[in-house]
């Protein structure tokens, strides 16, 4: 028996000083749930492909992580997601980009891999493909979390402040025109 699984839940915005013991416990529980979901598939003789799907879907369904429910907001206040899955035994692969109404983008990526002759579908076309293959679209509210919305508001404020400061500085990069 030689099987194993490894997962990640992102690396971009982790700051030790903002990590409370309670928050850390929540993340560890979320990671453990994902790990066990994938591990369970492997332990019962299932495929690596099914295992990584199960592990990723568990995190897509967990609002703590930036994927599926809990995805971050774009500048326009929408949620726009990307996903990919690849089978090492055949090098078959499926991916989707910029989808806005898909609860589990990785599930749609697998659908692209298994039910289309293409590798990567994006935007409205990807969502039409999802509907044509029986997947139900979700309303944008499905992805909303207060934490992610507050992060966007903070980012917009910082952006506005930076633009204001730049406008007041003679040495702004935007004014270096040669």
């Amino acid at each position, binding site marked *: *028996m*030689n*099987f*194993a*699984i*490894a*997962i*990640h*839940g*992102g*690396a*971009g915005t*982790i700051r*030790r000083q903002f990590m409370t013991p309670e928050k*850390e416990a929540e*993340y*560890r529980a979320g990671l453990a749930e*994902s*790990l*066990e979901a*994938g591990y369970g598939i*492997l332990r019962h003789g299932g*495929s*690596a492909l099914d*295992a*990584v799907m199960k*592990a*990723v879907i568990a995190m*897509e369904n967990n609002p703590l*992580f*930036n*994927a*599926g429910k809990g995805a*971050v*907001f*774009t*500048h326009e206040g929408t*949620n*726009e*997601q*990307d*996903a*990919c*899955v*690849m*089978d*090492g*035994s055949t*090098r078959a692969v499926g991916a989707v*980009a*910029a989808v806005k109404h898909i609860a*589990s983008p*990785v599930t749609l*990526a697998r659908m692209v891999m298994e039910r289309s002759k293409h*590798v*990567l579908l994006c935007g409205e076309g990807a969502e039409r493909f999802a509907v044509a293959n029986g997947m139900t679209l979700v309303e944008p509210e499905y992805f909303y979390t207060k934490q*992610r919305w507050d*992060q*966007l508001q903070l*980012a917009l404020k910082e952006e506005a402040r930076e633009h204001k400061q730049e406008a007041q500085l003679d040495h702004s990069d935007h004014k270096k025109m040669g």
Partner: protein
Amino acid sequence: TVGAVALDNHGNLAAATSTGGMTNKRYGRIGDTPIIGAGTYADNATCAISATGVGEFIMRAVLAHDIAALMQYKNMTLADAANLVVMEKLTALGGSGGLVAIDWDGNIVMPFNSEGMYRGYKLADGTGEIAIFKD
């Protein structure tokens, strides 16, 4: 971003990644996750990889396939190839992030050059680990 890599009892590898992208992104920006060979890659001959971090740098590094190529053409181990690509190449580009990877023999590596990376692994014998920061 979230992701997973696995080796099953039949010797098959797989990788999957899913992401909401970056806060406040515009213009239909797409990151490395759905770009095959950048943020996600799997090949039974070498390894399976799922990456996370600043997508623009991971795409420019063609991070995942670079590791597989070093294993295939230079006979490097997964650990050596992943460390070279993440800790040297990605860092030199100015990129921040990391990845989880597993090879055909079940070896797992999880290198990152950011402050932390939510991560975990579990082996057939039930041993494993969940971690967030470097220590």
